[in-house]
């Protein structure tokens, strides 16, 4: 158990900079999720912590010890790979015992540790099997077991659930969460799935193009996205974004369609500034006055309904309502958000306007 500190870490491949300076201190026992689209550098960052990629600049410290020049085996970490990376010629027992044998741990203790891990992961019946004789979910658990028995300073997960079907993924997600709560081992978890990030993380590091867009708890990231990118990446369906302008008194946002939405706090200093207005689909509700949309498509998901609408100016607007659909395509609907559910972003930089 240990802290993991990442200080101004950079990675370049020739002239291309893949990671442009990431800073984060992960607390002992914390579950940090690295979230971002493919190619954002999140896996590279994880592999640098593991020691599988060289570090171009900056420092990584595990348990207070700088590990930049240590081999993976000396970093006291365990990793779960996307394709599980089990040793195909070894039994489940030997897969889990491999790292312990190398470290010269006595046979009896190896047996005890593997048995304990097998019990936690319900793998007891499969210890004599080869990976090829297991299902995807079972292989995933063996990969977890191999990490657990090592009792490392930190767990590294590289998209561990991506190769599972949707149902198993949900189930394993809960198991990982339960396991981490129980073992309390510092974890770094890479995913592109926002649901995994929201449910597992103590904190989320949202990455885009090698930069940390935002670091925060799942609710902070959801409620106060630091940029348009984060706003669009977290939440399903994604946040509606409309072009707008703060009016001359700084008390409301003017939209091209002529609507005016009052701001919860007036912004007199920013009067006249062009902005992007973000509204989450789930925050729009049918009202007497507000946005008038023409309904184009209705998706009934059972528990809730997603309405694809279009504003008179042609902009798309998504509305997510609880329960069964109450409208049909072609209908006209008037929806409006509560004043405190508006997100304002700079029209040029995309950064959040605080306040």
């Amino acid at each position: 158990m240990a802290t993991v500190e990442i200080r101004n870490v950079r990675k370049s491949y020739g002239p291309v900079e893949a990671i442009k300076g990431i800073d984060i201190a992960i607390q002992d026992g914390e579950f940090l999720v690295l979230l971002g689209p493919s190619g954002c550098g999140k896996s590279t960052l994880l592999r640098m912590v593991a020691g599988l990629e060289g570090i171009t600049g900056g420092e990584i410290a595990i348990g207070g010890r700088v590990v930049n020049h240590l081999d993976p085996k000396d970093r006291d970490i365990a990793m779960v790979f996307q394709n599980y990376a089990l040793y195909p010629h070894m039994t489940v027992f030997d897969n889990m015992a491999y790292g312990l044998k190398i470290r010269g741990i006595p046979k009896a203790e190896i047996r005890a540790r593997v048995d304990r891990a097998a019990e936690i992961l319900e793998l007891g019946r499969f210890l004599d099997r080869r990976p090829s004789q297991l299902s995807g979910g079972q292989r995933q658990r063996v990969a977890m077991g191999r990490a657990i028995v090592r009792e490392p300073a930190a767990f590294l997960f590289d998209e561990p659930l991506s190769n599972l079907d949707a149902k198993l993924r949900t189930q394993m997600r809960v198991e990982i969460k339960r396991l981490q709560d129980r073992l309390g081992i510092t974890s770094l978890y890479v995913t592109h799935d926002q649901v995994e990030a929201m449910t597992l993380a103590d904190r989320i590091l949202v990455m885009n193009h090698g930069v940390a867009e935002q670091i925060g708890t799942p609710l902070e990231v959801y409620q106060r996205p630091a940029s348009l990118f984060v706003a669009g990446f977290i939440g399903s369906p994604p946040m509606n974004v409309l072009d707008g302008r703060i009016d001359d008194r700084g008390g409301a946002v003017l939209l091209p369609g002529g609507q005016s939405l009052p701001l919860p706090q007036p912004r007199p200093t920013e009067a006249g500034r062009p902005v992007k207005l973000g509204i989450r689909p789930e925050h729009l509700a049918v009202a007497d006055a507000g946005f008038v949309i023409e309904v184009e498509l209705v998706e009934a998901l059972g528990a809730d309904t997603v309405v694809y609408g279009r504003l008179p100016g042609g902009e798309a607007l998504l509305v997510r309502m609880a329960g069964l659909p109450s409208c049909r395509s072609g209908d006209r609907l008037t929806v409006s958000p509560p004043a405190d559910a508006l997100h304002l972003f700079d029209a040029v930089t995309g950064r959040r306007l605080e306040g």
Partner: protein
Amino acid sequence: MRGVALLDKRRRGFLFNPPHASPLRHAQPTKDHPLQRRVTFDNRLLPYLLLAPQVAVTLVFFIWPAAQAIWQSVHLQDAFGIRSEFVWFENFTHVLSDPNYLDTLKVTIVFSVAVTVLAMGVALLLAVLADSKIKGARAYKTLLIWPYALAPAVAAVLWMFIFNPDIGSFGRALRALGYDWDYRLNGGQALVMVIMAASWKQVSYNFIFFLAGLQAIPRSVMEAASIDGAGPVRRFWTITFPLLSPTTFFLLVVDMVYAFFETFGTIHALTQGGPGKATETLIFRVYQDGVVNNDLGGSSAQSVILMVIVIALTAVQFRFVERKVHYA
């Protein structure tokens, strides 16, 4: 990666399944047999016609010569090939009671084991090096494959130009250093030289397969092992080597057969089995007795014995060695 997998499958299919047993792919369910995935032929003759070339090749180039060898091995022929007489197993008793034949057998065993071990060991080493991240890996791989394109006799001439004590560069250097190098007189030196020449040719072939085998091992498995604490040497012996075992086993069988049968050209061009009989292997003796000494019956008996030895060896390999092979 896909190319490697294909190669792997084809190789295994060739060696471990009879070719006609592989199911026909791309088969569309037909109207008459909506659930049948295999191709069915309306014409009863067509399947046999399609099979005919394969059968013909096997018959003409394998079954017929083998049958003829067996037939001749129980006959005694005069030197002009005019008369032949059925002599039961006289040829065999004659061959097997000849002390020279047992010497040849010993030379063959030393030669074959040495060639197999050397060719596989060197190829594996080179393949591991080529698989690691090195500069100019592509050029290096290409160069390593070239020797296989060389005819055995040409390769042997090249070796001669290197090791000849009078005109060979290396041979002259050895002599200049005071070492009494002359493979034309020293049987041990001659055997070492033919072993090296024969191995050298097979290294390329083994190299390709080992490299393909290495590239089929997922990188993440090696990474997992290094995170688990295994250093490069341990990773090789506990992960790489076991995962290469199908390739290693395949090459073991192929190299044994190569050493027994296909090294004739190399030996013929380099030493003609000499000096004395120091480099005379079973296959070379078959040629020597049959073609040079005109003893067709004895030569055929040796052929049959050689065939039995190689069949037995291959059977043993499949029976006992393959058990330790892990097929992914």
